């Protein structure tokens, strides 16, 4: 457990790195609606601050 937490902490990176891809934040319904309308797939980055 303790080791796991340490490893998780080691993955920490500040959340707001400037991105060049237009990510929608935390809104699957919005992404799904857009994807259906444009007929293109959704690319998901599931992340955690730690």
């Amino acid at each position: 457990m303790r080791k796991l937490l340490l490893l998780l902490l080691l993955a920490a990176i500040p959340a707001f790195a400037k991105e060049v891809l237009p990510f929608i934040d935390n809104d699957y319904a919005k992404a799904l609606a857009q994807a259906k309308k444009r007929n293109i797939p959704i690319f998901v980055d599931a992340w955690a601050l730690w």
Partner: protein
Amino acid sequence: MRAFVLTDSSLARHAGQFVWLAVDIDDAANSAFLVKFPVTGTPTLMVIDPRTETVALRYVGSASVPQLEQLFRDGADLVRGKQLSVADEALNRADRLQNANQTAEAIKACEEAISAAPKNWTRFGRAAETLIASLRHSRNYEGCASRAVELYPRVAGTASGAGVADRGLSCALRLADEQKSRADLTAALTKAVREEAENPKNGLIDGDRAALYLSLIGERRRARDEAGMRSLREELAALLEQRAAAAQTPAQRASYDFYRARVYRDLGQAEKSIPMLEQTERDFPTDYVPPLWLSRAYSAMHKYDEALAASDRALARVSGGARTMVLDLRSDLYTARGDKAMAAQTLRDAIAFSESLPPGQHDQPLIDSLKKKLEKM
């Protein structure tokens, strides 16, 4: 990955290819998404077909720019229904099975993909990484390490090769001392990890390169070689300082802080990490991670009042599943200070909070481990 890869301007040409969705797994708003698409590690990258709301492709772990572009190509092909090879079909099946948490079946599908792989198959590296990760997830540590040794020569010199070697070594180190194969597997995989750690051409992002050094340090720890551990830590600290000095943005520089904080703490030099962590807290004042690491650094220096003050700031900023982790580490802080009552109360708070999390973020194994820890207090 978010500091270096997703900021790479060469990716802009892919912007119209997908709808891009970032999912913070600690945000309660994503609970339903996480029930539908379980995430077992971060980052998890997925391509979802919006017509069927199914996962066409899934990849766990950070990716370099070339790896990411390969995932874009593969994901788009899969959703378009491009004619698939036997190997492609098997790897896709492995993705779907892994998404359904059917690890044993996913392992079989990965092996089918590898057996059927055409020459120069672009997805071989990902198939190998997925197989090793799945074997480790299923706790088949000998199988994981053995297959990593067998597959490594076919992926050496690439980011996938580093992933195969690193995960394989972590499996070998979990084998019992009396297990006959342990020494040979560990030696072979340590050599492979060392090769990848020192290979500047394998496309690894620095965080993953640092993780390779931590694995090598873990191997020396298992061998009870204090001098070897110290030597590797000093090598890693020098590498991280060099890379951090060349960072172009605060986010890039900060991405090294946590590795540096860890390595300085382990070298008994926690004070060296205080200025960088304070700088990062100033740069990212709503982020809970810098004060959390400050609390750990101060704790290592036995400065418990400063450690608790930093932990207070982290607690004020953290939400979701990560709050459990912050409370758990705060409990450790009280233990180090000799305050058993507060340590136990804080752990009870961590358990209660974790139990209150919604489906998709509820982590029963974590809750069980915290309860065991509380019982031992």
